[in-house]
C-alpha cells in the first residue's frame, strides 16, 4: 500500500515540472511566438481580412513598405528617438541620482527621490493626456506663460517641427524617474570604503562617478540600457497615440506606430506584417549588439 502511493508520488513528481512550467510556455508560445510566426507568413501574402483568398506575393509587401515615404519618415523618426532619448534617459537620471546621493538630510533625499519617481507610476496615456492639456495651443498653460512673458505662442505638438520633440519630452518625463531610482539603488550599494579610498586620492565627485562608480554599477547600467531601448522603441507608442497620433503628417510616428496604423487603421495586413518582421529583425540586432557591447565591459562581482 505504502509502496504504491510512493510509486504514484514519484510519477507525480515527474509531472510536476510540466505542471509548473507548462502554462508559462503555453502562454508565451500562443500569444507571443505564434503571432510573430504568423506575421512572417502574412508578410509574404496579400490578404485583407475580407477576401477569402490569400495569395503568395513574395517580397512585394517589403518592397512597398520600403518605398512608402511614411515608412521612411517613421524609420528616420525611430532612429532620432533612439539617438536622442536613449542617452538622455540614461545620463540625466544618472546625474540626478548622484545629486540625490549628495543630499545629506535623509528626509529631504527621500522627498526628492519620491517626487522625481512620481511620473513613472503613471500610464503612458495618462502622461500624454496631462501634457496634452499643458500643450493645448488655445487655452493651455504653456502658451499662457509664453503670452505672459510677451513671447509668441507655440503650436507645440501640432507644429510639424515640434511634434517629435513634444513626444520625446513626454516620454522622457514619464521615464526618467525609473532609471534614476535604479541607478540610485546601485550607487547606494557601493561600499563606503571605496569612496573613502577615492577621497584620499583626491578624486573629485564627478571624476569618482566616471572612473569608480560607473564600472561598479555596470550590471545595473546594462539593465537600464536594455530596458530604456525597449521603452524608447515600444512604450513610446502610447505617448504618440495620445499626443499626436503620429502626426502632423507622420512627423512624430515611429515604425511600431506605422505598423499599427497600416494593420489596424488601414487593414493592410501584408504591409503591416512586413513592417513587424523588419522591427523584429531590428530588435534582435539591437539586443545582440548591446549584449556584445556590454559583454566585455560589464563588471560582475563574483
Amino acid at each position: 500500500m505504502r509502496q504504491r502511493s510512493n510509486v504514484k508520488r514519484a510519477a507525480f513528481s515527474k509531472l510536476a515540472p510540466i505542471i509548473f512550467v507548462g502554462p508559462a510556455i503555453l502562454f508565451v508560445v500562443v500569444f507571443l511566438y505564434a503571432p510573430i510566426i504568423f506575421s512572417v507568413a502574412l508578410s509574404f501574402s496579400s490578404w485583407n481580412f475580407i477576401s477569402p483568398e490569400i495569395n503568395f506575393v513574395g517580397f512585394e509587401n517589403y518592397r512597398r513598405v520600403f518605398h512608402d515615404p511614411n515608412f521612411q519618415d517613421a524609420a528616420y523618426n525611430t532612429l532620432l528617438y533612439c539617438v536622442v532619448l536613449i542617452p538622455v534617459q540614461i545620463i540625466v537620471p544618472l546625474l540626478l541620482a548622484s545629486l540625490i546621493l549628495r543630499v545629506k538630510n535623509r528626509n529631504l533625499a527621500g522627498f526628492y527621490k519620491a517626487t522625481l519617481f512620481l511620473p513613472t507610476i503613471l500610464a503612458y496615456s495618462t502622461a500624454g493626456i496631462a501634457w496634452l492639456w499643458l500643450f493645448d495651443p488655445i487655452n493651455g498653460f504653456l502658451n499662457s506663460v509664453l503670452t505672459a512673458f510677451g513671447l509668441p505662442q507655440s503650436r507645440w505638438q501640432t507644429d510639424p517641427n515640434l511634434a517629435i520633440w513634444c513626444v520625446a519630452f513626454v516620454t522622457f518625463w514619464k521615464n526618467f524617474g525609473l532609471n534614476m531610482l535604479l541607478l540610485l539603488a546601485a550607487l547606494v550599494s557601493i561600499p563606503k570604503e571605496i569612496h573613502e579610498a577615492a577621497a584620499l586620492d583626491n578624486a573629485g565627485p564627478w571624476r569618482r562617478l566616471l572612473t569608480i562608480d560607473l564600472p561598479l554599477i555596470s550590471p545595473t547600467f546594462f539593465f537600464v540600457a536594455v530596458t530604456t531601448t525597449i521603452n524608447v522603441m515600444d512604450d513610446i507608442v502610447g505617448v504618440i497615440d495620445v499626443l499626436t497620433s503620429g502626426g502632423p503628417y507622420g512627423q512624430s510616428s515611429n515604425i511600431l506606430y506605422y505598423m499599427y496604423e497600416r494593420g489596424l487603421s488601414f487593414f493592410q495586413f501584408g504591409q503591416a506584417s512586413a513592417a513587424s518582421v523588419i522591427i523584429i529583425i531590428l530588435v534582435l540586432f539591437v539586443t545582440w549588439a548591446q549584449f556584445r557591447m556590454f559583454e566585455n565591459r560589464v563588471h560582475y562581482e563574483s
Partner: protein
Amino acid sequence: MKVRTALGASAATHIVLSLVAILSVFPLFWMVTTAFTPNDLALTKAFRFWPEDPTFENFRIAFTDFHAANWIWNSILIAVLVSVGKLAIAVPAGFAFSHMQFRGRDALFWVIVATMTFPTIIGIVPLYIGISLIGWYDTQTAVIVPSIAYIGFYVFFMRQIFRSLPNAMFEAARLDNAGPFKQLFEIAIPNVLPAIASLSIISFLGAWNIYLWALLVLDTPEKRTLAIGLKSFVVIDDFEPMWGPMMAVALLSILPVMILFIFAQRYVMAAFTGGIGK
C-alpha cells in the same frame, strides 16, 4: 574656503533637484486643479493655481455623459485578473527553473525570458485577427488573456528570488516526503512573500495602464477602461476637447496608483528596483 565651496555645491544641488521635482509634479497638480474647475472657466483663465469655484461638475459629467463608473470597474477587473494570472503562472515556473531538475530546463527558461525584449505590440495584427475569429472581439477576455503572456520578466524575477533560498531547504523537505506542490506552497512561497508583493504591485500598475491593445479590442464605450476612456474626450475633433471632465477621469485613473504609491512608497520603489542594491 572649503566650507564655502561645499555649501555652494549643495545649494546648486538643491536648486536643480527642486526644479526637477516641480517639473515632475506640476502636470499632475495642473490635472487636479483643472478637474475641480468648471469647464468653461478652465478654458478662459489659464492661470489659476487653485480652483476658484471648486466643483464636482466635471466628475458628474464623466459619470453621467460618459461611462466613468464602468471604466473604473473594468480597469479594476482587468488589472486584478491580469495580475493574478501572471503570478499564478510565473511563480511556479520560477520555482521549477530554480529548484527542480528536468530536461530542457535552460532552453525553456530562455524561450520565456527572451520575450522580455519583444515589443509589446509586435504581434498585434495576427493577434487581432485571431481574437476576431474566435469571437472575443469587444470582450474583456480579449484584453486579459493575451496580456497575461508578458511574463518574461516575472519568471526571470521569481527564479532569481527562489534561487536565494538554499537548496538544502528543499532537500530536507524531500527527505520528509514533501512533494513538489508542498515544497512550493509550504516552503518556497511563504519565504518570499515580500518579493511576491513587489511583483504584484508592478503587475497591477502595468495592467492598470494597458492602452493600445485595449483600445483596439474594446469597442463598446461601456466596456472600456479608464486608460482608454480618456481618449473619448480627445476625439471631439472640431471643438476644444472637454478638458475639465477629461482631467477628472485622468485623476480617477491615477488615484488608485497614487494611493498605492503614497501608502506603500517604499514597497513600490523596491518593487521597481527588484534585487538591485540588496
